[in-house]
């Protein structure tokens, strides 16, 4: 695989519309934190600071959740270290009414849409505060009010869901655009072809956002596809695409904004390949040192999205050490309080075992539940129900 520094071209930051070839890499931030000439999207100060704050919050949340997993306090966790810009930049560029169909590493999108931190942590625990009532695997948040769709684990299925929703939005004449996320691994799934094909044919209001983090668990991008890039795959479906520096929050923001506007105008779907890197394991159960070189990880650390954006803000005199320390403290307190609140919630009531599948639990379900309760009575306090 090419080292990240080789991927960066010197002056690709032109504000072009999505190109059909998708071979060029859109980048705004230079490594020193300056913006490439003519590339700065000129966002308002509040927007810039909000992007940064969300990236820092996402990182701290991620760090603490992995720690809780190691301590046995949550089930498992899929860390996103190094990919903060991809989620934060793309979600910030959408309108609040737009729907998000996430894959594994877009949990921060739910938080940005208003899912309280404590409820996200409760989801990882699977207790009574969890909207999924402990029935979903950890990291599979859901937040309907924030137009954040509950994720299905199966690779690539999110694509069909997103395209279906976009077709529905078009039929109903909604203003909402659909943002459908996927990883590099999902581009090898059947759903990728079916979804991309439908999206292209029906010109649906969709932004497909592929976080190409170079690794699908242990499969490197080089073994995922023989295509030169992932972005060029969109051409086969008659869909314009852009290849974007995924560790550059401004480039991600700008590309998503353009794609969403295009969809809103009725000009159809756009495919974005966000080139980034998964610095930790696929999940808390994975050990990447068994299949990849530490040197590769180190090379990508130098392109850390948070550091790069902080340098940009400092260069614009919008950020300094005092602000950094205050923000870190605030967020640490916020996360700590959320952990406390989430852990204070009790387990889900045993009755929830049989609810929600049918409007009324069936006779058979009630009978089975009575048996469970009987066993529970026999072993009061010893059977964890």
């Amino acid at each position, binding site marked *: 695989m090419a080292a990240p520094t080789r991927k960066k071209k010197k002056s690709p930051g032109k504000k072009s519309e999505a190109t059909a070839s998708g071979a060029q890499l859109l980048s705004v931030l230079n490594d020193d934190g300056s913006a490439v000439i003519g590339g700065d999207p000129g966002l308002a100060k509040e927007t810039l600071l909000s992007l940064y704050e969300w990236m820092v919050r996402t990182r701290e949340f991620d760090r603490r959740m992995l720690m809780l997993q190691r*301590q046995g*306090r949550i089930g498992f966790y899929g860390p996103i270290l190094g990919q903060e810009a991809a989620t934060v930049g793309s979600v910030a560029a959408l309108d609040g009414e737009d729907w998000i169909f996430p894959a594994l590493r877009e949990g921060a999108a739910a938080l940005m849409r208003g899912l309280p931190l404590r409820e996200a942590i409760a989801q990882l625990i699977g207790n009574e505060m969890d909207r999924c009532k402990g029935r979903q695997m950890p990291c599979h948040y859901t937040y309907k009010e924030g137009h954040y769709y509950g994720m299905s684990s199966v690779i690539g299925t999110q694509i069909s869901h997103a395209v279906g929703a976009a077709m529905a939005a078009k039929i109903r004449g909604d203003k909402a655009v659909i943002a459908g996320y996927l990883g590099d691994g999902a581009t090898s799934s059947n759903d990728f072809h079916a979804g991309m094909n439908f999206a292209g044919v029906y010109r649906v209001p969709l932004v497909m956002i592929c976080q190409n983090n170079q690794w699908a668990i242990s499969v490197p991008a080089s073994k995922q596809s023989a295509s030169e890039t992932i972005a060029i795959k969109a051409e086969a479906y008659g869909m314009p695409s852009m290849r974007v520096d995924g560790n550059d929050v401004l480039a991600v923001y700008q590309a998503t904004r353009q794609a969403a506007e295009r969809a809103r105008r009725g000009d159809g779907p756009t495919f974005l390949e966000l080139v980034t890197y998964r610095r930790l394991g696929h999940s808390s159960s*994975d*050990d990447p040192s068994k299949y990849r070189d530490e040197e590769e990880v180190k090379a990508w650390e130098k392109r850390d999205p948070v550091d790069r954006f902080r340098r940009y803000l400092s260069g614009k005199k919008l950020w300094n050490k005092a602000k950094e320390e205050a923000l870190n403290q605030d967020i640490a307190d916020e996360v700590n309080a959320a952990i406390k609140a989430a852990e204070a919630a009790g387990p889900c009531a045993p009755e929830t075992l049989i609810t929600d599948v049918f409007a009324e639990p069936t006779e058979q379900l009630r009978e089975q539940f009575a048996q469970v309760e009987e066993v529970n009575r026999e*072993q009061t306090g*010893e059977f964890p129900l």
Partner: protein
Amino acid sequence: MTIKEFKLPDIGEGIAEGEIVSWKVTPGQQVKEEDEFVEVMTDKATVMITVPYDGVIKELTCKEGDVVPVESVIARIEVGATADSPAASTATAVSSGVSSGTSAAATAPAPAAPVSVPAPAAFVQASPGKVLAAPATRRRAREMGIDLHAVKGSGPRGRITNEDLSGVAAQPSRSAPAAATSAPRAAVSLPAPPPGVREERRPFRGMRRKIAEAMSRSKQTAAHFTYVDDINVGKLVALRTEAKQQYADSGINITYLPFIMKAVVAGMKQFPDMNSALDEAANEFVVKHYYNFGIATDTEQGLVVPVIKDVDQKSIAQLALELQELAAATREGRVGIDQLQGGTFTITNAGNIGGLFATPVINFPEVAILGVHAIKNTPVINAAGEVEAGKVMYLSVSIDHRLVDGATGARWMNVIKDCLENPTRLLLGSV
């Protein structure tokens, strides 16, 4: 002040146990949430666990190098305490030093505070009289006619699992279900050395422990028998000497091993059972129609078995080159996980060290392992019945008698012998 037990969490979705690699705290130490606590190695990864509470470390209940089941208590933390409070000063240390790494292990553990790892069977049942079991297990027990009160559970808090029931059913007599769960063998503890002599203690963990586990499992499961034959390799020596010179310029070191690998494939084509394994769970005998040979390789860390794939499809020169590259990679520790997996048969080559023959231990669950030994100058009797100076090599094969009988093993060895004594057969192949 409350004392909280810290149980080893399932840090990798369904792991059974973890090895304590290193403690980052000592008893009596004041800790904060997020401080480094303990490094644990599981089947999947080595991970750092951080301290979950502010407080004082009261006790560490296991030592570095111990392998502990998930959900067993590995430490106790006095939550909210400070290091100088009276309660904290009574913190108890584990028998051998925990803070100073491997060097601490050099001192023999004091016998006063032995720490035994709680093996699954050692869990005490929650309360006498009550039996813990899931409804499905209860039903199965009813169907099997097993009284749950007579079964010792291996699950958390003594809960009876389906496996426990299978264990009872597997016993010849149900009248003695107490014997159903085989008690783990008590660990042997060595006394401190007598005064005046020196002993060295090294941690038994990591690769050494993995090798130990694999070897014990093989010896305890496979019914080993070893068959040895001598091979008159006069012609092979001549052929190899010539080949070595011819390939010298291309940087390929032609050794005897590729010829032997090809001969083994020829033997397996005639006796496919020699390239097989037993799927115990499915009760099926799996014959492999691909030929991936593990080559037991001696490294500083211990035995490593990299695999050469598709031996049947490669030329002798290709095999020689691949062996050369793999050996270098293995010794330099560059060998990838995919190069250590997928073997169907193993060859162990002790020829360059010495010896006559050996009784190799099968690389379980493969069915057999071939030991290759030194070529020696030995008198042989030629076709005319005269004694002449010859070159003879021993081959030893250990076979799992559960799957392959002696006669098959002997006939298989005869094919190999024939190929190596008449190496033109290797070059021309079979019809």
